[in-house]
């Protein structure tokens, strides 16, 4: 049938053939060019801004500053409502809070003239002290959101007077007491860096008034419905007057969840009545969109001599940059999607502060805290094993979560509100570990080998879990209509950002309707036409949107049967995908639908389905790698990476495999190469592909991906999510492999060759 088959992506061939598909491919030819004048200071107050010269240029049709845009405060995070992120941002603000923050928006008919106009805007700044080092931000004498009436929709531990975007604390059991009773207590501090998304397509937006005078925004967004809500409300436009369309997107990884250029372009169109478009430069993508939250994680583990882990205590300091987008929720995931891996503990504690600094805002990024927390947790498990002189795999197997078990954390820690209790009904971690050990030949290679050329090889492992949507919050829906030749339209709010979600959702509909996938025509992500969906984030599409499609398809079968009963006048009806049978009569679906729409008892058959999860079953995985280190230079090479993933039923094995491979390389990039580096004055040092090093095809070694046989009873066709989990294991697995090879424990990302060399030669620890 259609599920668990490697069906090619429905849009794949068209994309490779270069068909117009992305936002800018559809921009009207006469769209005004919109550009943003950005702050040269990390923290400053605009004391005056003179746009008169710019406005004298005939080609310039609109200049926006904080003086002439709506003075509204909101969160750009692109989350559900009410948002769990603080309301701390404005369309344009008198205060600029990072180098690259928006100062003015210029729109004109010629790009050259827009550039000229930007140079003619005279801005006077009162430069303020900037906070770049996030470890100094809390209770700093400089306040980044001092002058604004920031607030949160409900308590998230937000306190602008302390530079605190959000904070959280919880304890299950009594951690200090448990630690006292442990044979071994190990504490360590880990640092993870700001990573840039570096998606292929820069953010871009086009806006225009359509023939019904409705404001249409076409955007490279992961969240069209959130964009409509946030833009319309803050521009004072009825939601009914705004349409948001997401065409194809050139990658997102979380970086396109938030509102970026949408406000500027929509406002230009609203004011001028003319179509407008903005394409971010690559520099803007690096400097003025999002990074991953950099973190300091203090982790304590308490265990008995036999390896039984009794307590875990995690304390996080997270850097949200200039605005608090995703501040709380990334923090929560850092704990909630890691600590339950070792659920047999007596007590577990988690607390964290998310602080403002004068750097690029941090936001959603694949892994969403889980990768940061995983680096700390899965490193410390190996450190504990070393201390106890135990095998790190054995210590994991002894303590890890298993099917039929739960963790109180699921109930206590949600994303903005309390979580939901969840029994783990599918968890094949034991199988995952066995698979990667076998495929990497762990027993032969562990812990290290010295090669004839003097290079050292070591292996390392890490386990991971993620979620499948946000239970009780994320909603998705689907509509199916039968067309007049017996094929179906599947209309979904779900947002395909290149992952292939349109394809897997069509597979699910085809499975239930018992028709080939090419009989399902998918249309998605258009707020006028498609039903509601929160969007592509939190690993929700397969599980949450998938369920809505399953329900809609089941309802369509019922609708067909119901019509058949009335049409043929009998209760004895059946449908098998090809034929509608009623008693002794039968009609092909093709003939039936043609008759239904053209000749007899005419009626359009439509069904719908919507879904909100009651749980977010975690996918699990084991990742193992072999690294080779040249002791003469410290050069680290990942020779091969092995991953075994439990994502329940694999809806499309090819697409799932590529999701895991792509995520692994992004994780390897974060571990070894990538870091958004800020100078002391707040300037992003590496703001281009020349200086920001994403892995290229020359950096990648063989990746061996395997999916274990697993079935999640609560999932659509047994499926769980797969989009994020692949990124989580590389930091710890590589750090563990480096330790096994060299005896050097690196607790700071990225792991640099020069740092490793320094440690190996001076026998000093880095932090």
């Amino acid at each position, binding site marked *: 049938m259609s599920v668990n088959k490697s069906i090619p*992506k429905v849009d794949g*061939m068209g994309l490779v053939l*270069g068909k117009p598909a992305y936002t800018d491919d559809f921009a009207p030819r006469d769209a005004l060019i919109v550009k943003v004048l950005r702050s040269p200071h990390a923290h400053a107050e605009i004391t005056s801004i003179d746009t008169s010269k710019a406005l004298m240029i005939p080609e310039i049709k609109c200049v926006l500053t904080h003086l002439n845009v709506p003075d509204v405060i909101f969160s750009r995070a692109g989350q559900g409502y009410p948002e769990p992120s603080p309301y701390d941002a404005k369309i344009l603000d008198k205060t600029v809070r990072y180098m690259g923050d928006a100062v003015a928006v210029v729109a004109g008919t010629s790009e050259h003239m827009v550039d000229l106009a930007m140079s003619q805007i005279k801005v006077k700044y009162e430069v303020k002290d900037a906070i770049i080092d996030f470890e100094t931000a809390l209770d700093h004498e400089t306040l980044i959101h001092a002058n604004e009436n920031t607030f949160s929709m409900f308590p998230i531990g937000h306190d602008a007077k302390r530079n605190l975007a959000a904070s959280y604390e919880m304890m299950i059991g009594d951690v200090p007491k448990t630690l006292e009773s442990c044979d071994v207590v190990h504490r360590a501090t880990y640092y993870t860096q700001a990573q840039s998304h570096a998606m292929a397509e820069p953010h871009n937006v086009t806006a225009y008034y359509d023939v019904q005078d409705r404001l249409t925004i076409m955007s490279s967004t992961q969240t069209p419905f959130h964009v409509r809500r946030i833009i319309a409300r803050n521009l004072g436009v009825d939601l009914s007057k705004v349409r948001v369309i997401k065409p194809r997107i050139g990658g997102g990884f979380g970086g396109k969840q938030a509102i970026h250029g949408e406000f500027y372009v929509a406002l230009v169109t609203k004011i001028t009545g003319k179509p407008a478009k903005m394409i971010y430069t690559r520099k803007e993508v690096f400097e003025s969109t999002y990074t991953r939250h950099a973190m300091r994680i203090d982790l304590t583990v308490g265990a008995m001599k036999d390896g039984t882990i009794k307590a875990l205590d995690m304390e996080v300091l997270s850097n949200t940059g200039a605005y608090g987008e995703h501040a709380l929720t990334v923090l929560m995931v850092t704990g909630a999607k890691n600590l339950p891996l070792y659920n047999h503990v007596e007590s577990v504690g988690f607390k964290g502060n998310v602080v403002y600094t004068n750097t690029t805002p941090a936001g959603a990024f694949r892994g969403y805290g889980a990768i940061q927390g995983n680096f700390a947790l899965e490193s410390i498990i190996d450190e504990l094993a070393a201390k106890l002189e135990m095998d790190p795999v054995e210590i994991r197997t002894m303590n890890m979560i298993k099917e039929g078990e739960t963790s109180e954390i699921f109930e206590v820690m949600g994303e903005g509100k309390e979580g939901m209790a969840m029994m783990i009904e599918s968890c094949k971690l034991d199988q995952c570990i066995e698979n990667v050990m076998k495929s990497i030949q762990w027993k032969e290679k562990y812990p290290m080998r010295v090669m004839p050329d003097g290079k050292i090889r070591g292996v390392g492992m890490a386990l991971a879990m993620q979620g499948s949507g946000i239970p009780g919050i994320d909603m998705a829906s689907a509509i199916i209509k039968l067309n007049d030749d017996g094929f179906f339209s599947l209309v979904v709010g779900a947002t395909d950002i290149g992952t292939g979600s349109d394809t897997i959702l069509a597979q699910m509909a085809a499975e239930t309707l018992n028709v080939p996938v090419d009989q399902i025509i998918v249309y998605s992500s258009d707020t006028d036409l498609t039903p509601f969906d929160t969007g592509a984030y939190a690993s929700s599409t397969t599980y949450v949107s998938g369920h809505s499609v399953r329900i809609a398809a089941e309802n369509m079968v019922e609708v067909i049967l119901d019509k058949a009963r009335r049409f043929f006048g009998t209760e004895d009806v059946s449908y098998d995908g090809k034929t509608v049978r009623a008693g002794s009569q039968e009609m092909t679906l093709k003939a039936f639908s043609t008759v239904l729409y053209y000749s007899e008892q005419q009626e359009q058959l439509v069904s719908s389905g919507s879904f909100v999860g009651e749980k977010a079953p975690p996918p699990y995985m084991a990742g193992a790698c072999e690294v080779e280190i040249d002791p003469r230079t410290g050069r680290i090479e990942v020779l091969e990476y092995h991953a075994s993933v439990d994502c329940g039923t694999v809806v499309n094995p090819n697409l799932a495999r590529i999701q895991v491979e792509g995520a692994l390389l992004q994780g390897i990039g974060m571990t070894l190469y990538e870091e958004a580096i800020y100078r002391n004055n707040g300037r992003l040092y590496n703001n281009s592909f020349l200086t920001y090093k994403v892995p290229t095809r020359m950096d990648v070694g063989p990746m061996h991906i395997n999916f274990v046989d697993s079935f999640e009873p609560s999932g659509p066709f047994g499926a769980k999510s797969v989009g994020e989990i692949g990124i989580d294991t590389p930091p710890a697995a590589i750090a563990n492999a480096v330790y096994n090879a060299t005896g050097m424990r690196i607790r700071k990302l990225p792991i640099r060759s020069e740092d490793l060399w320094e440690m190996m030669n001076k026998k000093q620890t880095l932090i």
Partner: protein
Amino acid sequence: MEVTLIINGDHFGFSAEPDEVLLDTLRKLGFKSVKRGCDTTSCGMCHIIVDGQLVPSCSYLTVRANRKKIVTVEGVQEKVRAIAEFMTAEGVEQCGYCSPGHMMSLIALFEENPKPTIDEVKHYLAGNMCRCSGFEGQHRAIAAYLEVEQS
């Protein structure tokens, strides 16, 4: 400045700004397969072939292309389709934004070296970035294509 561009065999008269790059010109003329990924010739998404030479169109002045033969993915649809069959069979195109540039590099490579090894492919395509796929699937697809092509 008035230029004549020979794009995929058709002649286009075009009035170009002195500092205009081919990427922008081609997109204005409707060749939307040519994508902008950066402005430092680092990503390969705007690759096209000019007079038989693979070039990043983001850094090639339009006026320099006067009377030159330009090939974009729109002009080699059947060649691209033959390779793309293997890409889509792996599911490796993902967001697809880097794919047209990637295809142009491959077509240029096969012109120069019809029987490359996978190592030669990796070297030739080193400048074609992809953030979705992890590259390994691309190499599997290319290896499968070459095997069929060469047999």
